[in-house]
């Protein structure tokens, strides 16, 4: 009996298991592989109608030509500055806010927490015109602070860290208080070390969001010297109408996508945990 059932089970595992698994993985991976292949083609090769799957002779020309059209070094620098400064401030603000909400006595704490949580609900899109008017009025167009400032208020990090802090044993902080440690020392020397994984999660999700952020930098910058990478790619996309631009665009896509992909490959445990919080309890 088992001799007839074993092959059928094996077939079932292939058809309902491995086959869909492989197909799904390929559907996700192939466009990204296609992006890399596209970036290695020469612009001339794409203009001919019969396009081969693999580049005839792989070249980094597209990266160089893209850099000639738009200053990629500068875009990368701008994106890095915005990401590092923005994410650092956001994580620090989330830490101090969550700490105060959990461990410092003050009236109306839940009201204040609620007011901050609303920021989770109000996407940048809804506040687009008023924030543009405000920041542009203060002279923030085409400046780093103009790009960074409006997004600094953080609800996501505050929410996640507050949850984590609430689960800490009270004795831990009481011991530190009896040792005479003030709130700063309690935060830095007691709370931060024991909640490091959650802080890493918040930091990584924040970094990825800042790096990918598009709408706000798009409206607040108008010159390529102050643009971030996603905005610069839009300028590049608009700069030429023919298909020869594609290798350059794919080179740009590689530059904006691959850093996050590498980060994700090594630290996906934290990133997935952070992005799926709320659903999995």
């Amino acid at each position, binding site marked *: 009996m088992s001799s007839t059932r074993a092959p059928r089970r094996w077939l079932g595992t292939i058809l309902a298991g491995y086959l869909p698994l492989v197909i799904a993985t390929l559907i996700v991976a192939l466009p990204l592989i296609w992006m890399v292949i596209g970036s290695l083609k020469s612009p001339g090769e794409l203009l001919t109608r019969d396009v081969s799957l693999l580049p005839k002779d792989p070249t980094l020309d597209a990266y160089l030509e893209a850099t000639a059209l738009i200053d990629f070094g500068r875009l990368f620098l701008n994106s890095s500055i915005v990401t590092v400064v923005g994410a650092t401030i956001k994580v620090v603000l989330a830490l101090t806010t969550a700490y105060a909400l959990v461990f410092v*006595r003050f009236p109306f704490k839940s009201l204040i927490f609620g007011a901050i949580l609303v920021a989770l609900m109000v996407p940048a899109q809804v506040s687009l015109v008023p924030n543009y008017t405000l920041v542009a009025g203060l002279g923030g167009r085409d400046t780093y602070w103009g790009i960074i400032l409006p997004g600094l208020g953080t609800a996501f990090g505050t929410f996640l860290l507050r949850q984590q802090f609430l689960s800490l044993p009270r004795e831990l902080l009481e011991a530190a208080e009896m040792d005479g440690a003030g709130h700063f020392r309690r935060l830095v020397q007691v709370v931060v070390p024991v909640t490091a994984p959650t802080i890493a999660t918040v930091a990584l999700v924040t970094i990825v969001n800042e790096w990918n952020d598009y*709408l706000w930098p798009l*409206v607040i910058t108008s010159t390529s010297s102050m643009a971030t990478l996603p905005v610069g790619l839009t300028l590049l996309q608009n700069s030429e109408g023919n298909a020869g631009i594609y290798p350059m665009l794919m080179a740009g896509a590689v530059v904006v996508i691959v850093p996050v992909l590498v980060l994700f490959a090594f630290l996906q445990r934290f990133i997935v945990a952070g992005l799926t919080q709320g659903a999995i309890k």
Partner: protein
Amino acid sequence: MAATPGPTAAHSRLRRRWAWSTTRGRRDAGIFLLFVLPNLALVLVFCWWPIIQNVRLSLLDWTLGNPRARPVGLANYIEFFTEDAPQVLWTTLVFTVVTVGGSMLLGLLLALVLNRRLIGRTFARATVFAPFVLSGVGIGLVWTFIFDPNIGISSQLLRAAGLVVPQWFLDPNLSLLMVCIVFVWKHLGYCAVIYLAGLQSIPGDLLEAAAMDGAGPFRRFFTITLPLLSPTTFFLVLTTILASLQAFDLIRIMTPLGNGTTTLMYDVYLQAFGGYNRGGYSAAIATVLFAILVVVTVVQMRFLQRRVHYA
């Protein structure tokens, strides 16, 4: 103050309520404000204030960047609901239904596969989740390249198969479909991972008992798995609706003019920054979008609260 309090005294002191009259209370208040005020101020200025401003601006005939504006009452809303709304709301509805349905259905199927003990499923899980964290601009460019009617790989494959190449970028309906496909591609891994967590919380003996009673895999899925997944499904419906209502990057990159793809969100952008500079009108649409987001979020919070109590 008094002599050093013992452990019990410190204990009760720490748990005492805050009071302004004590030195400690004032010091705590100082620390609290120092720690919270910067974040709170940013949220108030850049999230709360704009909501109020939007309502005020939506009552003006105002060109973005112009210092002068003319009050027009509800004219912007009337114009939106009589002229643009049918098309824009329809596009938003189609986009939302197709993307939410598509990513959740495919995500669920994928989760069922990922839930089996297969070699390489950890790798597959990470791979399908990856697009969710990647730049929408980068992804949009890659898919623009793939869908290009002349040199795109999809067009070449269709031509090789002797089929007609769809005019993805010219036909408004096809443009909408194209953006939906890419949105689903980007979000299905997220749905799969959330569904997978839901599946793993279903007790195995429940399914085993049903199998012993002679229930086949389909019966088990529809009578046990799916009902037990309903909290997950509800959570995903709401979060994916919110994500879908906010979709911008893909639409801006793949269909800059919004030909067939002008959702509520994209209209807010187009009216203000797409060349018309209609600040007041854009603010009116943003207010409508905000009202919809409030409804979705309130439903979500109600539900989450209930779930916490049940748990």
